[in-house]
């Protein structure tokens, strides 16, 4: 057939790289929207609650605006999420053929959560005017629960790829029995799910706060802007210290159960005790270049003692080592570095708020908050790079190599290029649309819309 087979780029090995790039790119795009889908509902409901309980018009206005923005981000997230589910079959048909019956259950469960989230999101977003105040508030609560449930299911599936269990193979390697509970509750679920949930709340909180920080830096110092900064920032700053603890635990679990990934992200060439912790630098066969080395710290972080043994790449067969160790190492360091910086921001905010019941009165605080959203997103991406690139060459750790899973279809590079352009347009338009909404809100000023939220039905023109 094959007009497409004539393309020189259709060679099989090339397919693997193209398919991995496409998966990484589309997942990286979607994961930001997924974070908003998971954590924006709770952020909105906090504002909605304050609006109802204290009669706070500014808080109510924020909840209303955020829910309008969520209508856009959720729509784009729903379609980009659909693309990912298609890609499981389009890019990795052999993976699904062999393992779909095992880890697919996680996605089957996720389907229910996504369903309920889409339904109640519609009721909440479009029910502002004609559902009563508290009834409307409660219609939003299922979004929070289903967002958490959906994230649990999807991340459990990813965790299973890292620490697969809950199946029986026959001599030919075919799955003949499954234990769905063990699949869902694989050991990696325990640290990956909380890590991702907290990340979703951090990304959402810092991102929304950063938008209002930029507005305040431009001189919009009204109460609405301050509240728009404080509500999401508080949520993110509560999540941050917990995240540091969870992330630290996750790294130790990776060291114990995924030694190749850990050796890659920490640039450990030789197994042994008294491992140096390298901050930054380039990983080479002769050790780390241009990094800052702290003697014994890596061993100490893994097992609370410099005598802790840590596996190095020399004990991992060459064809089972992750590629691009420098990428892994720098991604890991960037994630930890950004997380630590955000922790500093959280302490600063928390301390000043505790003392003065106000945000720090220096433009540097607003500048820090205004970059925190992008920072949290970069940290999120870096974390996924560590998880996914660090598992290579495996798609199912120890059981199936990614090269065995990839499609034989032609033209993946071409499709990848097209998808990059399409998503770039999609992302740009989404930002333009959201900025346009924000501009219109400002132009309307503080005047309430005709009818306003929760106005009696008679006053609303149908």
């Amino acid at each position: 057939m094959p007009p497409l087979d004539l393309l020189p780029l259709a060679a099989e090995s090339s397919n693997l790289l193209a398919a991995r790039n496409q998966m990484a790119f589309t997942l990286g795009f979607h994961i930001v929207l997924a974070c908003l889908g998971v954590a924006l509902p709770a952020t909105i409901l906090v504002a909605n609650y304050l609006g109802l309980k204290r009669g706070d018009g500014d808080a109510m206005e924020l909840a209303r605006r955020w829910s309008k923005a969520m209508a856009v981000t959720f729509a784009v997230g729903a379609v980009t999420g659909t693309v990912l589910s298609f890609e499981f079959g389009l890019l990795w048909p052999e993976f699904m053929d062999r393992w779909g019956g095992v880890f697919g259950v996680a996605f089957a469960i996720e389907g229910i959560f996504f369903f309920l989230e889409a339904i109640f999101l519609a009721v909440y977003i479009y029910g502002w005017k004609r559902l009563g105040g508290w009834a409307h508030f409660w219609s939003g609560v299922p979004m929070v629960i289903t967002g958490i449930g959906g994230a649990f299911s999807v991340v459990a599936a990813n965790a299973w790829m890292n620490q697969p269990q809950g199946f029986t193979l026959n001599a030919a390697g075919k799955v003949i029995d499954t234990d769905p509970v063990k699949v869902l509750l694989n050991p990696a679920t325990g640290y990956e799910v909380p890590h991702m949930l907290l990340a979703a709340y951090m990304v959402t909180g810092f991102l929304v706060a950063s938008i209002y920080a930029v507005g305040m830096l431009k001189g919009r110092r009204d109460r609405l802007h301050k509240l728009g900064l404080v509500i999401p920032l508080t949520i993110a700053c509560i999540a941050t210290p917990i995240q540091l603890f969870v992330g630290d635990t996750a790294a130790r679990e990776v060291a114990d159960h995924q030694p190749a990934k850990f050796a890659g992200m920490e640039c450990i060439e030789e197994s042994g005790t008294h491992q140096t912790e390298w901050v930054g630098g380039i990983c080479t066969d002769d050790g780390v270049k241009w990094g800052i080395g702290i003697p014994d710290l890596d061993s100490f972080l893994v097992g609370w003692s410099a005598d802790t043994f840590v596996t190095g790449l020399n004990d991992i067969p060459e064809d089972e080592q992750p590629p691009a160790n420098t990428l892994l190492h720098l991604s890991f360091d960037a994630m930890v570095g950004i997380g630590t910086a955000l922790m500093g921001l959280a302490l600063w905010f928390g301390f000043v708020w505790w003392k003065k019941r106000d945000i720090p009165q220096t433009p540097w605080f607003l500048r820090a908050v205004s970059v925190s959203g992008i920072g949290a997103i970069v940290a999120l991406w870096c974390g996924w790079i560590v998880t996914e690139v660090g598992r290579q060459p495996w798609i199912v750790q120890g059981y199936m190599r990614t090269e065995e899973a990839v499609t034989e279809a032609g033209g993946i590079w071409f499709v990848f290029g097209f998808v990059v352009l399409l998503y770039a347009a999609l992302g740009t338009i989404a930002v333009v649309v959201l900025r346009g909404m924000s501009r219109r809100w400002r132009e309307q000023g503080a005047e309430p819309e005709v009818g306003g939220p929760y106005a009696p039905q008679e006053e609303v023109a149908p």
Partner: protein
Amino acid sequence: MSKADAAAAILWVGATFYALFGGADFGGGFWDLIAGGAERGERPRGLIQNSLTPVWEANHVWLIFIIVILWTAFPPAFSAIFSTLYVPIALAALGIVLRGAGFAFRKSFEGLSERRAAGATFAISSLLTPFFMGTVVGAIAAGQVPADGNGDAFSSWIQPLPLLIGGMFVATGAYLSGVFLVGDARRAGDDELERYFERRALGAAVVAGAFAVAGLVALHSEARYVYDRLVEQGLPLVILSLLCGIALLAVLLRGGRRPLRPLAAGAVTAVIWGWGVAQFPYLLPTSLRIDQAAAPDPTMTIVFVVFGVAAVLVLPSLALLYTLSQRDLLESEH
């Protein structure tokens, strides 16, 4: 009925809901596309927008439901379909992205030209997705998907039967949507729009019927196994579909105000289950049987649990959403 058969039935339930509700949403895009210039098409487009806005995302989830149940309960079938029909599937996915984005962006744009571009994107992609999904179903029925996958990427679906089924999907969506919109126009008390969509529903019914007849002819030559079972075991369902279709035409032509939606839904549902009966016991006629493709039993149990939870939680929630929407308690211009 074995566990695998029950799981296949769940798949068909999902397909039925997706065809009825998701299909109607695609049809809305079709009517939007041919509604004419900005001024002339303003009122029908307004009605379409109002009826789609609160529900299209929830309706879209049926597709996710079908996909995840397919790959969980019947992984080899999922893999075979996606590794063979990746061209129409990728094009359907493109349509899904463009349609959702176009629809979501349209009402957020201010300028007329941006709105028009977003609207056109939404409307054109509303044809793209059902057409290519139809070719996928047609290619499966025609036995073009080998059990171990990697069938021919083009000749598997560029054939009369898949292309006709693609056309039938577009026409059926338009037909369902036309009928649903007649009801919405009635509720809004808009006689003019009611007539407008009655005429269009009638036209779409005739076109969908023509595609179905042509499809049956193609089925006879390209998918003999499916054809034979359709006219034997599936015959009652074919007759039921025909009766519903004729009754609906009669109501539309006489211009009464009898309920139309159950008849339209009945006609489409009967065809979908007729297809299922005709394929039985194959998922991929005639290379992969349902029992051959089935995942191990514990996985199937989870599929049943998920379906049970869906029946207990999702269906009532959907009913709530539709009720609120039909009582005008939700609004598209939030």
